[in-house]
């Protein structure tokens, strides 16, 4: 006779495996003194153009590298390589997001000396849903939305905005043509993530980019001061 059914408590985080790898990565990044920034957005909001601009402008001043995740093709890595920064493509196949283990593998495969880097950028797969659940060991998560996407995007995807630290409104050169309401967008961002820092910029014209780069430089200096204490 089989025993009576009973309930046993176990309490285990389903994403524990990812979290463990992410924590180990974060410790490794901090020990090396590299500041890690990840980018999330929907497909087509301009992550790659923005990252290319960021790498190009930072490269004369800082040591930078980038990992870029896509379901298929190495097109983005080829575009980013124009910045002359070291770039590695991560092809996820059918997976709709990056996981900490993929970042770890990519960094190890490239054999980058993390101690020789100031900034490492990680461009996630274009997706505003799935990446929110996965910690990648980054110091800063940036969520992008372009002026062509609609002002209510933060209200539609509150989870990803909540998992991010900074919001960037991209393609501001198109704002007038699409009658973009910057105030409404900022209000919506603050509604789902009160106190979130917001930048508005154009990777094409360069408008507003320096302010964001200044912010990154501050954050890098802060994290190194903290590490030294």
């Amino acid at each position, binding site marked *: 006779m089989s025993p009576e059914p009973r*309930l046993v408590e176990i*309490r*285990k*985080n*389903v994403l524990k495996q990812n979290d463990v790898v992410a924590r180990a990565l974060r410790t490794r990044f901090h020990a090396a003194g590299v500041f890690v920034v990840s980018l999330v957005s929907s497909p087509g909001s301009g992550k790659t153009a923005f990252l290319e601009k960021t790498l190009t402008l930072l490269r004369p001043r800082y040591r930078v590298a980038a990992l870029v995740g896509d379901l298929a093709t190495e097109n983005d890595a080829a575009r980013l390589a124009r910045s002359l920064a070291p770039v590695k493509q991560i092809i996820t196949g059918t997976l709709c997001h990056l996981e900490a283990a993929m970042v770890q593998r990519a960094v190890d495969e490239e054999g980058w000396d993390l101690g020789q880097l100031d900034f490492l950028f990680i461009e996630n797969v274009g997706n505003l*849903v799935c990446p929110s*659940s996965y910690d990648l060991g980054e110091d800063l998560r940036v969520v992008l939305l372009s002026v062509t996407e609609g002002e209510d995007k933060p*209200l539609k995807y509150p989870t*990803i905005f909540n998992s991010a630290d900074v919001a960037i409104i991209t393609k501001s050169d198109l704002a007038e043509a699409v009658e973009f309401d910057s105030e409404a967008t900022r209000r919506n961002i603050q509604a789902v993530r009160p106190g979130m820092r917001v930048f508005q910029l154009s990777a094409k014209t360069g408008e507003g980019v320096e302010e964001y780069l200044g912010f990154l430089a501050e954050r890098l200096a802060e994290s190194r001061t903290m590490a030294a204490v």
Partner: protein
Amino acid sequence: MHELSIAMSIVEMAQEEALQRGVQVNAVHLKLGALSGVVKEALLSSYEMACDDTPLRGSRLVIEDVPVVIFCPHCKVQRPLSSVQLFCCAECGTPTSEIVHGKELEVVALEIQ
């Protein structure tokens, strides 16, 4: 759609426990936060698929929804959030990003036999 890989992790965890204890799993109890980034319906159907060809085939996934609870820095208490579109205290209206509950994605118990 990352629910299938999450369902597979759940099945793997339950299977490990079952193997260790030498028991059969009838159901897996899961806490699912409103801000976990996981869709309940998609997870339920993915779970069935993930159970196929495993000893958990035919087992149930019992999901307990966890609503978002925030900490109000003004009232100094935890309160349920009225809407994920508006992160503020339901009593005094102070905006807050301090999330106490709502990100859970946790296997809490197994119904075994």
